[in-house]
């Protein structure tokens, strides 16, 4: 399983919501530095200094407060667990960050990321299980491509519909969760 080898030391797709990607990247750069001591973890790949050309932090207190709130809001693309999500947020669809909306089924196989929780300063392994069996939810699309791989490296690719792996062979994609699997070491 070449992609599992890759996975063990792999990069993780990280935060870059299309609609506010540039502003988000600046804050991320800083966040992820907190994970720099964990060289084998995906999150370590995020430990880059803020890049040239990234939008300068406007410095407005309101902005910073809103950003901080969003980091703890499961219905926000900026929620800390969503650092490698791609799809509609189940928290906006009748589920939550770790549960599926009524009547859908959680995919058995999916892709994972490692995210930093600013509230406790810890990094967590997060599993982005899709919820399956109904049409797309259509709410809170959160689409990021940081460290996303092409589909020939499946478990790091956000271009798959992971409902494909559902036990019922039913591929209808509804939304994506962000479950904590455990603390990252």
């Amino acid at each position, binding site marked *: *399983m070449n992609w*599992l080898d890759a*996975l*063990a030391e792999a990069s993780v797709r990280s935060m870059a919501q299309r609609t506010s990607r540039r502003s988000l990247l600046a804050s991320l750069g800083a966040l992820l530095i907190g994970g720099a001591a964990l060289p084998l*973890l995906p999150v370590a790949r995020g430990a880059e200094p803020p890049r040239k050309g990234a939008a300068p932090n406007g410095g407005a207190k309101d902005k910073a407060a809103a950003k901080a709130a969003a980091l703890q809001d499961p219905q926000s693309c900026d929620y800390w667990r969503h650092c490698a999500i791609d799809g509609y947020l189940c928290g*906006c*669809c*009748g*589920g*939550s*960050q*770790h*549960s*599926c*909306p*009524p*009547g*859908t*089924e*959680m995919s*058995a*196989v999916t892709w*994972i990321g*490692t995210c930093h*929780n600013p509230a*406790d*300063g*810890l990094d*967590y*392994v997060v*599993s982005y*299980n899709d*919820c399956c069996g*109904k*049409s797309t*939810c*259509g*709410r*809170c699309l959160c689409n990021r491509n940081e460290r996303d791989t092409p589909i020939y490296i499946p*478990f790091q690719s956000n271009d798959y519909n992971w409902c494909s*792996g559902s036990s019922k062979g039913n591929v*209808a994609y509804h939304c994506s969760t962000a*479950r*904590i*699997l*455990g*603390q*990252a*070491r």
Partner: protein
Amino acid sequence: MGCPSLCTLWAGAIAALTAAAATVAAPLPADPLSQVESLPLPPAPHWVWVNDFAFSHMANGKAMLVDGDSGRFLGELDTGFGAVRIVLSADGALIYSPETYFSRGTRGTRTDVVTIYDAARLAPVGEIEIPPKRSSNMPMIANAILTDDGRFLLIYNFNPAQSISVVDTRARTFVGEIDTPGCALAFPTGARAFFSLCADGALLKVRLDDSGRGVSQERTAPFFEVQTNPVTEKAVRRGDSWYFVSYDGTIYSVIIGRDGADLTAGPHWSLTSDSERAQQWRPGGLQQLAVHAGLNRLYAIMHRGGPETHKDPGREVWVYDLERHARVQKIPMQHDSGSILVSRDAKPLLFSIFIESNILDVYDAASGRHLRTVPDIGTTPTIMVGP
């Protein structure tokens, strides 16, 4: 490589990444696998179901459930091609959904069914096949509706022959079809009676037996004037009265007498004053009326325009006392309103949608205060039903 071996490897990789490390702060616990939400029953009075006709992709209609108090999206049902509405059981525990499917999406063999959903799990628990002739039209409340005792589901057919399919929700069987030539839709008038609206303005009164079969039909003389100022088919019911509104804003009522078959006309009255009519104020929209039984209030979406604007949205909802036939309130709308619904409880909410946007507006029906706007409610939201 199959999933069994792959999944084992996968689990191993995850275990390697998540070995429990002692830290100063107690870390957040792991989330359970395969957790799926379910809803409390009975449904809360401030929940509302919004029908998404999905006009650009009609094969994938939806019904979407929103909590008006929080604005939270609670879940959805996929309701197939040309979805008109879902129907809630009397106790709120089940949902009946007339649905149309094709073996190849938009072509191939057509199958019409009533899917029965568990209202807590929003998952199908049964299916009743019905004749594949369910009417495909802009969603109307009278497309599919339960008899007053909640037992028989009446579904309007048009192909273009007109009939009503009767489904026994207790036995979960299709009972049969009742021809209603020249007459459309179903407006229940009792446990075993309904009427359809005929093209000449007459009512076709139909009685069912206890098995749901049609046992008698009677066609009245023209009840409504249909040529110059017809009533819309978008009626609302309060107790023993069905309220219809004409293009010019006159309210006509059908009063249900003994046994649901003795139908008489109530007094008619206008939503507008002479001067308002001169200013071309009139009702409009797709679900243009709402009613609150407890408050004895009627709500109408109002705008200014000619008779050809009878489906146009409005920016005001006017509220009437049904006893005094007097306007008691005007509620300004934050956005264009094409359909309204008022919850049944004592502190009612007023919901508003419009097919050309995809938001749900929520108001305090008593004060008229705008409480919230819920975004991203489907593609082309049409009509609403509540518990």
